[in-house]
């Protein structure tokens, strides 16, 4: 079975000679059908450029890729691909249902089929009551919803979402999250570009971290988040010797306003840490074990590769 997305050495270079900037550098990535893949990276890392190359909005300087087993730009493959760009712009004069009708017609749907599909999608993105309102009058959140609507109107097998919740309030974010999970359950492959790490954590099975155009980490979310353990510690009278012992035990140690955040590799080390502090005679005021959030892993990865 071909991969949903198969990227080989994809590179995008802007500028010439001294001004040359590699926005994306020799990207290699394979995403299986049915996966929800989170694509992370700081601003300017090359995430949007990557998606734009895959959608043939811009053309790669070198490298190749295939979507749903077909080469980039294949019109037949696009019949089963949906895309929500970052900061999607709309033709404001259209009403919501006209807008979706137009996009459905670009997929070659017949009029009767379009009518049914548009109503279904409007319901799905929570805009049924606004179907006759002009898009120009929509709030940012509503615009994002109608943008998602046009991306899923063709029941895509592969869906690219570039910052889908950036303009949404918490309720809207939850709705999009639920929608992603529902599409995942239906077998849709989703490529999610997002700054909302908590959202990625809740929806994605695998993540890739991109920095300065290079893919610096790729991993299953489970194996990335679960093995590491984090403990927040507040204690009085910690000696230098104890601190040194903690440093040796921890894979990462952060100190902020009297609070230590200790990252440990194994769960059993949590007890060892507690014992170490108690035995040193320090006054332990707080000891809160928790999983390392994706945000910390993300920051650590970026810092290590800076």
């Amino acid at each position, binding site marked *: 079975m071909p991969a949903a997305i198969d990227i080989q050495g994809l590179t995008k270079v802007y500028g010439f000679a001294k001004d040359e900037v590699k926005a994306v550098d020799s990207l290699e990535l394979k995403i299986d059908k049915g996966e929800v893949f989170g694509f992370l990276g700081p601003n300017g890392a090359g995430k949007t*450029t990557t998606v734009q190359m895959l*959608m*043939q*909005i*811009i053309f790669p300087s070198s490298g190749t890729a295939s979507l749903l087993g077909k080469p980039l730009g294949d019109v037949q493959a696009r019949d089963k691909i949906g895309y929500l*760009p970052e900061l999607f712009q709309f*033709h404001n004069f259209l009403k919501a249902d006209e807008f979706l009708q137009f996009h459905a017609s*670009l997929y070659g749907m017949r009029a009767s089929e379009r009518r049914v599909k548009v109503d279904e999608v409007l319901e799905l993105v929570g805009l049924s009551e606004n179907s006759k309102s002009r898009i120009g009058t929509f709030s940012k959140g509503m615009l994002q919803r109608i943008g998602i609507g046009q991306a899923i109107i063709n029941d895509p097998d592969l869906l690219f979402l570039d910052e889908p919740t950036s303009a949404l309030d918490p309720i809207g974010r939850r709705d999009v999250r639920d929608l992603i999970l529902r599409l995942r359950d239906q077998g849709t492959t989703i490529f999610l570009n997002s700054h909302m790490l908590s959202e990625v954590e809740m929806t994605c099975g695998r993540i890739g971290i991109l920095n300065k155009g290079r893919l610096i980490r790729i991993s299953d979310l489970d194996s990335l988040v679960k093995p590491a353990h984090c403990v927040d510690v507040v204690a009085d009278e910690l000696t230098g010797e104890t601190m040194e012992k903690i440093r040796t035990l921890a894979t990462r140690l952060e100190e902020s306003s009297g609070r230590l955040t200790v990252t440990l590799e194994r769960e059993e080390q949590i007890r060892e840490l507690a014992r170490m502090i108690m035995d040193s005679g320090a006054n332990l005021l707080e000891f809160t074990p928790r999983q390392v959030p994706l945000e910390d892993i993300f920051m650590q990865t970026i810092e290590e590769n800076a």
Partner: protein
Amino acid sequence: MKTWAVARFTLKETIRTKTMIFGLIFSLLYLAVVPMLSTSGGGTAVVGDIDQTAAGRDFLGFALGGLNFIGMAMAIFTTLGAIYTEIERGTILSLVTKPLHRWQIIVGKWMGHVLLMSGYVLIMGLALWLSVGVGSGVFIWRFFPAIALVCLNIITMVSLTLVFSTFLPVIANAIFVFIMFIFTSNLRIISAIGETSDNIILVIFSSALRLILPVSEVSELASLALAGKTPGSQSIVASETSVFAPRSWSFIYEITYIAIMVFLATLVFRKKDLSQSA
């Protein structure tokens, strides 16, 4: 079907633009003025001893010239941002990522503008023909081949402006197209300079330059068609040199020119990066 969807959408979009609305208001004013002129002399004061048919034909010739100019200006202004503005706004992204070839977007856009502007010319032409006919009592059927040639001119301007809109911002596009239009409309001056200075190369060169934008020549062909004359039988302008007499094949050349322009637009757009982020 997908190309047709883009065409219908373009038509819907363009008809709502301020340029189009302004153009339509101006056209209505023009429609109101022409019949007044055609009836003001009652067929005598203005036309003297020329018969009623000739008077009607002259008024229609005047109306046709005006319509040709207004139509071409509207075609330019409404097509200026056809592609570039969509790229700037980012609205093009929702089109190019759909299961469409890029050439379908160009052809769809072109069809939308052509349908709108041709519809405009045909309705305006019919209204002018009726108003002049009712005003002067003479209905001249030769007006319709002439209107078809005006239509061809307008499609040419749409096609040329569309090519530039694939890579030039609106203002630069306007400057280029108007410079081309003004330049090719005044080639007689260059030719006259050539004649005065006995420079035959300059005369031939200025004649050849008409091929850059054939609208002026086809406009003259339209006037000839209205007058019931064939190219070469009689010059429109008394002082005209033979090299500037409209050629009967110029409208066939113009059709080829339109096809080349649409092809060029698809060629430029085919491999164009459409993101402004770079």
